[in-house]
């Protein structure tokens, strides 16, 4: 689950500085970081998750997003484990490790010049202008009204265009017959899948699994509501989006990268 960029045996190894540019984009020089240790306080939000009813349609008044504080000393692998458990992932028996589904990965980056290293969790960034949705020939790759990007497996034909289009490598393809799926996350051979922001939990008034496991290092909320915790934190401390230069406006924001 961990991509170690310094791994000399990694055939995908990219020269460090270019990988860093790849991830952080042209705004890397802007230097907007919040000091390590800045606490992301839980403030009183306007509408909380529990205000949304199961019998309400997803609404475009809401845009769900996440704010990841990478300065927190959190073991991101806990988030990966929580995600795998929630969605019943990592149950492939024949696939190679690099074929197995990942909804969320831990990416380690190191600046060779200064020696500074850090790790960050990367999941589907739930782009506003999602390239995976643009390229899908069947309408399977879709954005829900509230900004959550998912694959409608009823329509997916497994062409994997979306995997090529996604700049964050967020999508996986299931290569083998699966059994014993969880009841909330149907998934099977021949379909592409990615982080769905735990849509089953959100619709049920619960936080996404990785948010729960992150010990407060990932804040979830409504980006459209200026009173929400996440909006207040973003207004106060700012954030960075990975590859902001692509202007996809991801719903996942980072601090400390």
């Amino acid at each position, binding site marked *: 689950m961990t991509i170690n960029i310094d791994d000399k045996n990694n055939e995908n190894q990219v020269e460090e500085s270019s990988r860093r540019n790849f991830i952080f984009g042209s705004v890397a020089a802007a230097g907007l970081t919040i000091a390590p240790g800045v606490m992301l306080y839980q403030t009183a939000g306007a509408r909380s998750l529990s205000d949304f*009813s*199961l*019998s*309400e*349609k*997803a609404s475009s008044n809401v845009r769900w997003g996440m704010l990841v504080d990478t300065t927190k000393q959190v073991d991101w692998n806990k988030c990966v484990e929580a995600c795998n458990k929630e969605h019943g992932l990592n149950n492939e028996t024949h696939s190679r490790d690099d074929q197995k589904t990942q909804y969320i990965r831990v990416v380690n980056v190191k600046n060779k010049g200064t020696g500074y290293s850090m790790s960050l969790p990367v999941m589907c960034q739930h782009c506003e202008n999602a390239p995976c949705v643009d390229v899908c020939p069947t309408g399977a790759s*879709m954005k*829900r*009204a*509230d900004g959550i990007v*998912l694959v*409608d*497996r*009823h*329509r*997916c*034909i*497994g062409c994997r265009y979306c995997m090529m289009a996604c700049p964050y490598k967020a999508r996986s393809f299931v290569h083998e*017959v*699966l*059994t*014993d*799926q*969880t*009841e*909330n996350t*149907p*998934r*099977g*051979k*021949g*379909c592409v899948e990615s982080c769905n922001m735990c*849509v089953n939990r959100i*619709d*049920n008034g619960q936080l996404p699994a990785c948010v729960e496991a992150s010990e407060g290092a990932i804040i979830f909320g409504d980006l459209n509501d200026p009173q929400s915790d996440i909006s207040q934190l973003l207004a106060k401390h700012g954030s960075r989006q990975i590859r902001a230069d692509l202007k996809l406006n991801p719903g996942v924001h980072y601090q400390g990268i």
Partner: protein
Amino acid sequence: MGLHLNLSLHKLPFMLVGVAFIATSSIVNAGQSELGPRVTIPESSGDKCILPASEMRRRHPDLLKHDRIQTLREGLRANADGSMLDGSLKQCVNCHAIKSDDKYVRIDNNEHFCVSCHKYAAVSIDCFQCHRDIPEGSSNFHALSGTKKHYGNVLPGVYTLTNKDVANIAPEVRSDDN
């Protein structure tokens, strides 16, 4: 992949002939119960389904399609009156799961609720390549009776599948909106 109801249409005339044949012979041999293959419809455990059984038998493919658009694409997961009848397939599975020797039977078993009829009707479904085929034991879980009810032979009067019904169902089943 999608719920492709591969109702082999070229087989339908034969099925209808079959039904007609059974109907004729049942008149001749009225009272005999061992005519033709039997379909065992397992009993479910919930209080009631969203429609009467006769309607469900005929219309469940359309309902499933409708519900999956509501739940997945629109994010609507309960009835408008707030009752927690989840439109996702897991609710169907929770009520209709069958136990044999105290274990749930899986989709590769002919006793599985969906398989029991679809096998007879030669309708292959691939819902369960992705969907879980047995309950997970969540809070939505209903107590299961696991008993079976035999409806006897498929006779007119039990299943009223007429030419008109087939004409009504077939275009929906074949529709591209899957």
